[in-house]
């Protein structure tokens, strides 16, 4: 399957380049060379131990290299399922960015748009950041993205500007045939800026999809950024998402990755703390059943002293779902006074479910406080008994406990309406009901 895409690139690289931006093309050939060398990752690689992507990658997907417009109006076809959310709402269908329709005016200097278009309008700005993090990585999926991605979204918040309302990007996969989309996104927060981004993943058609998205986020000095990712797709979707975040001095980042419904998902989240006094909170949850596969690979790199990081991931697994978690925590040589904590907790509800977890610490400095913990287990029988002895049915008692288990992750969502919505979705999900969103094809 590597060869298939290598040939494809060799044949079509002129068209790929033609329908993309110059700055993106600059990295294209080197990315391709790297992909040709590395190929797609396999579970034999340490970082992809828990992601078996061979089956979804072998599917013969269509690619929209010539970027033929899709006759769809996402503002009509898709109703956002977070009621009452007031946000700057944008859609990305496959890899096409749809500008805002009834747009709330953006504060001055804030840019939100298609990366390709913005590279034309603000070349210096895009050039300064594009691929600065991703081109450093020796990773087959990122290299593939570098070779094939033609567009994505671009968010720029200038110095000292605070975006009151969250920016919401809804990724929709739409096609009549099995389809693959690659996109490369860029988020830049200048000094002291503040923004919240909500990315939702959805699928519209019942075909096989594969999305390979790379998002680079640059958080400058004293800036504050929140990144929420909510996945609610169908079981024939493969979502490969890479989030690379760079933090500068005294910046603050919150990342919350929620996977409720999906096919095969691989989330790579890498946070580099490249300035002193950074704070980062990385959370995530997975509720999985049937044949869902979710692998969250996280890496927090303390490159400078005096930073704090905290990581919390929780999973509830049912049926035949298989999930993985890797929590890499690297404290560089001179990153003294680091405080880094990591927790991964998992509930297994079915004998056929499988969880693999690897919370690893790599510490090269001595004046640090680091700890990690991981547990795999079941609901506490005594707590269940307590609830039942007070007249709560077994089913409700279990639900209550599972919900309580997830509560601290949900608590780390600082957009109230979104928090309520996710609360409801998780509850429905734990009850085994579909939390159906309009315009979304829900799996059988």
């Amino acid at each position, binding site marked *: 399957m590597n060869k298939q895409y290598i040939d494809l690139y060799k044949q079509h690289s002129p068209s790929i380049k033609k329908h993309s931006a110059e700055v993106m093309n600059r990295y294209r050939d080197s990315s391709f060379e790297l992909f040709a060398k590395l190929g797609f990752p396999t579970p034999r690689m*340490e970082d992809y131990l828990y992601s078996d992507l061979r089956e979804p990658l072998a599917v013969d997907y269509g690619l929209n290299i010539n970027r033929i417009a899709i006759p769809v109006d996402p503002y009509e076809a898709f109703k956002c399922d977070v009621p009452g959310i007031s946000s700057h709402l944008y859609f990305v269908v496959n890899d096409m960015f749809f500008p805002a329709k009834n747009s709330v005016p953006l504060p001055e200097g804030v840019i939100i748009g298609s990366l390709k278009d913005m590279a034309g309008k603000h070349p210096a700005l895009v050039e300064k950041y594009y691929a600065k993090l991703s081109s450093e990585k020796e990773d087959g999926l990122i290299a593939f993205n570098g070779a094939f991605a033609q567009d994505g979204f671009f968010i720029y918040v200038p110095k000292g500007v605070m975006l009151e309302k969250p920016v919401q990007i809804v990724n929709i996969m739409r096609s009549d045939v099995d389809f693959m989309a690659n996109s490369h996104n860029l988020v830049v927060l200048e000094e002291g800026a503040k923004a919240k981004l909500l990315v939702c993943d959805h699928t519209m058609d019942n075909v096989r999809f594969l999305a390979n998205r790379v998002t680079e986020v640059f958080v400058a000095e004293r800036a504050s950024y929140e990144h929420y990712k909510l996945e609610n797709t169908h079981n024939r979707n493969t979502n490969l998402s890479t989030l690379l975040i760079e933090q500068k001095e005294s910046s603050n980042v919150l990342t919350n990755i929620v996977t409720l419904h999906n096919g095969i998902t691989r989330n790579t989240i890498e946070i580099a703390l490249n300035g002193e006094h950074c704070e980062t909170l990385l959370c995530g949850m997975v509720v999985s059943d049937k044949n869902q596969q979710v692998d969250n690979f996280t890496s927090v790199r303390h490159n400078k002293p005096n930073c704090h990081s905290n990581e919390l991931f929780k999973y509830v697994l049912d049926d035949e779902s298989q999930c993985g978690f890797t929590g890499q925590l690297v404290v560089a*040589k*001179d990153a*003294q006074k680091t405080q880094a904590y990591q927790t991964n907790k*998992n509930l*297994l*509800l*079915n*004998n*056929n*479910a*499988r*969880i*693999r*977890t*690897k*919370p*690893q*610490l*790599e*510490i*090269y*400095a*001595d*004046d*640090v*406080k*680091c*700890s*990690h*913990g*991981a*547990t*795999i*287990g*079941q609901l506490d029988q005594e707590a269940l008994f307590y609830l039942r002895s007070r007249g709560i049915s077994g089913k409700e008692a279990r639900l209550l406990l599972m919900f309580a288990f997830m509560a601290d992750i949900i608590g780390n969502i600082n957009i109230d309406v979104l928090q309520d919505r996710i609360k409801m979705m998780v509850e429905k999900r734990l009850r085994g009901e579909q939390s159906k969103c309009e315009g979304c094809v829900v799996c059988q």
Partner: protein
Amino acid sequence: MSEDILHKVTNEEYKYGFTTDIETEVIPKGLNEDIVRLISAKKNEPEWLLEYRLKAYRHWLTMEMPTWAHLDIPEINYQDIIYYAAPRKNAPKSLDEVDPELLKTFDKLGIPLEEQKALSGMAVDAVMDSVSVKTTFKETLAELGIIFCSFSEAVEHHPDLVQKYLGSVVPYTDNFFATLNCAVFSDGSFVYIPKGVRCPMELSTYFRINAVNTGQFERTLIIAEEESYVSYLEGCTAPMRDENQLHAAIVEIVVMKNAEVKYSTVQNWYPGDNEGKGGIYNFVTKRGICKGENARLSWTQVETGSAITWKYPSCILQGDNSSAEFYSVAVTNNYQQADTGTKMIHLGKNTRSHILSKGISAGHSQNSYRGLVRVNKGAENARNFSQCDSLLLGDKCGAHTFPYMDVHNDSSVVEHEATTSKISEDQIFYCNQRGISTEDAVGLIVNGYAKEVINKLPMEFAVEAQKLLQITLEGSVG
């Protein structure tokens, strides 16, 4: 102040470094089929064992040295190693026939071969280089039906047992170093505890690597029949050498129904000098299987030596209700590297395992814990608790933790926790306040930190282990 102490520690010389001049019989350098045949012939081995070696050797040719460990291993030239060395005077009949030089060496190490043997109550099977030199207390053990002898003797006298169990826990295809060992293993120990017998004494083997440039490829096989019990000790010191020495041993343990085996190691091979030159490479495969119900196996190790340690004593919990334990203290100093941990494979119902690992890094060393806890579908109600703590004694060393957990059923509970820290100023200050010098305070704290593991060692070993901690980290240990 504490920096001075750490500096002193880093400059501590290896105290047990000395060599003995005993003529050793060596075969040419290098490895090929003829060498494998020659080793086998020198040891008068039966045909099946030669076949086993050759099978392993041919498989080894197809393998590559693994690179996944968090270690920086200089390239090893496998053709530059002498694969067999034996002291000339084979099988002495009594102590008088043992080379006095050898006895002196043992004396320096405090091995109770002579009158000390009665006092210490240990049966010592001293292995110098590759051939067993002396076995004591054999008669006492023989009365109970216990077999405790060198591996070659076991091949000669109990071929059926050896053939039945050799490779049953670690197959010859297991990994690069294990396969190499299967092809060229020289000698080792063999223990068989018959049904219902409780071994009355601690069985102990002292290993020494002695001849220049000879890799030591030990093979240990321990079989505990139903309802038996044995505690086995392995301790190592090695003379100072400049050239790197490769050690790739295999230890296999079979624990039957209701039996219990305790395996303790104190390892203090030459770790290389202050610049990281020399030192021993220790690439060992240790694995035990709890075959029957209620079987128990425990590994306890104190690792202070070796330039590079790559070692994962593992347990396969096959029998229902069986349990396994792993207790480890790993200390690295100067340029030492250690990647060590355990594997607990839960197959049977209600199996339990406990992992306690304490790492201490100083100097420029890198110390990693790597452990796997795997619970298979059939292992209902399996339970594991792992704790791995790291203590850093310097800003140039590293402490790493790589735990892998893989659970495949809904009735098991697996927990892991790890912390990394240094000795805090507060702790030192607290001790200083009470009139304890900084040096003593560091000692107290490190000893307290390792105590949980050291307490699991048999008495004689606990004393040695504490001494080793002191030697390795002298200055910071009071």
